[in-house]
């Protein structure tokens, strides 16, 4: 190193000052709210938790909210996973006119306020909406203030997640192995299941988990289309709001802590996937006499 070491980093007091700032900021703004959730949930002991699942009215409402959230998220994530895989295959395996536009459009829901995401479906399917009257006349099932509306709003909000995670992974893996399989006579489905999927499974798993966490926790969009019918269209985040506004803080935080655990699990899986990737890179680097093909750049 030609320059003295001292010139390539900051004085020690600056470094430790910045580190102290980072630890303080992260502790105050990120960790403390999380601690507050669990503290609020356990402030009155385990009884509150058990109360969520007993036979009382409150317990039934909480259980229903959990079941409803799981079903809405399950449907929305399944649909968006199918879409995400299709979109990633299309956008990484072919170059065509309008590809860049599609990439931008997939991100569009990120830029839309969740409230607006709910509003658009009210405008389409509400009684005063574009299709509302026609659907009532034809005795089609209700969409707004019912399960289909909750699913639609959730699908809109979580639309980009799987595709966003999968696209860079599939781009990096490249197409050589798939082309080799094709030349050897494999069909499209068998290429996908036996060549592509094993290569990108961790990216896909992370995308699905990210999508599920967001779907379970979605509040604004679902709040607009739900109508807040207790025991019918109240998802878990909406139930948290109702309990909180009724000053049932302990029960509210108990429900919130369940969703926080899902969030923490998401962070855990992210670390796991990153760790596996580092491991794979290290393994590839150690096989020096047989270097892997460099990742293909767009």
């Amino acid at each position, binding site marked *: 190193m*030609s*320059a003295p070491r001292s*010139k*390539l*980093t*900051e004085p020690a007091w600056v*470094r430790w000052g*910045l580190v102290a700032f*980072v630890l303080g*900021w*992260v502790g105050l*703004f*990120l*960790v*403390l*709210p*999380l601690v*507050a*959730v669990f503290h*609020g949930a356990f402030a009155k002991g385990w009884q509150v938790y058990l109360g969520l699942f007993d036979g009382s009215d409150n317990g039934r409402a909480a259980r229903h909210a959990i079941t409803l959230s799981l079903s809405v998220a399950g449907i929305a994530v399944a649909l968006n996973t*199918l*879409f995400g895989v*299709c*979109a990633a295959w*299309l956008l990484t*395996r*072919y*170059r*065509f006119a309008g590809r860049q536009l599609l990439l931008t*459009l997939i991100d569009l829901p990120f*830029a*839309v306020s*969740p*409230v*607006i995401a709910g509003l658009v479906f*009210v*405008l389409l399917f*509400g009684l005063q909406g*574009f299709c509302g009257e026609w659907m009532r006349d034809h005795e089609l099932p209700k969409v707004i203030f019912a399960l289909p509306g909750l699913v639609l709003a959730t699908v*809109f909000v979580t639309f980009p997640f799987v595709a966003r995670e999968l696209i860079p992974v599939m781009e990096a893996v490249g*197409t050589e192995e*798939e*082309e080799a399989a*094709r030349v050897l006579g494999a069909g*499209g489905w068998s290429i996908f299941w036996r060549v592509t999927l094993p290569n990108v499974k961790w990216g896909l798993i992370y995308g699905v988990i990210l999508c599920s966490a967001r779907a379970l*926790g979605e*509040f*604004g969009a679902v*709040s*607009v289309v739900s109508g807040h019918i207790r025991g019918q269209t109240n998802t878990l*985040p909406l139930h948290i*709001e109702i309990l*909180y506004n009724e000053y049932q*803080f302990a029960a509210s935080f108990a429900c919130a802590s369940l*969703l926080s655990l899902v*969030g923490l699990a*998401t*962070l855990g899986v*992210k*670390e796991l996937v990153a760790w596996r990737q580092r491991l794979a890179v290290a393994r590839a680097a150690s096989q020096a006499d047989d270097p892997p093909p460099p990742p293909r750049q767009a």
Partner: protein
Amino acid sequence: MAASRRILPGFGLTLGVTVAWLGLIVLIPLAALVAKSTSLSWEQFWGTVTSERTLAAFGLSFGAAAVAALVNLVAGAVIAWALVRYRFPGRRLVDAVIDLPFALPTAVAGIALTTLYAPNGWIGALLEPLGIQVAFTRLGVVMALIFIGLPFVVRTVQPVLEEIPAEFEEAAASLGASRLTVVLRVLLPEALPALITGTTLAFARAVGEYGSVIFIAGNIQGQTEIAPLLIVIQLEQYNYAEATAIAVVMLVLSFALLLAVNLLQRWSNRRFREST
């Protein structure tokens, strides 16, 4: 890639599914919003959008989002810098926790922050003797937006700092530049596009944020009522036209921001390619 188009099957199927799903879920509903807004006369539209209550809501949403984004610009840059350049106890944990606002549902963040900053909360009780009230004021709105915006700046800047080659700094230092000069004149220009992108993303997210804000805001009309909440209120009173007008204005502004981010990224990518 021209060869793979011929070799790998599935172009028609995946194109069909992608375009159909995108159209059904995203494009047609957003088009319905725009179509609904055209049913208002211009006077109605303008009257709604420039009413005192709406202007106050827009002012708060955009103003608080701007303040929060600037705070996150500074804090996010320092955090990204420390994570990339320093080794300190708890670094891996801090790195993992940064994504918490992405992972924590907004309603959960909302009630947690309100409980912390309420006058009888852990932080609120410390601030009250100083005469600072956070919960149920505009400051509370800013606090919630700082929480949700932080990872956008950190996660945009971090990879760029990791990529800056050590030669840049070594060259500047060996030519006699002080450390402060190196940071301001060599490193900052390299990280600037990422800093602007991350801040814009945090700003765009904060403008539309609903769940984490409505609990801590107190929702006093004309004072702590954010624009997304006003949409919900209008909708609950069956004022569909008013709700739509506010939503269209927000949508246009968000798309303008998204476009700006895209152009910025394309510009900085091109600059990067030219310089290497």
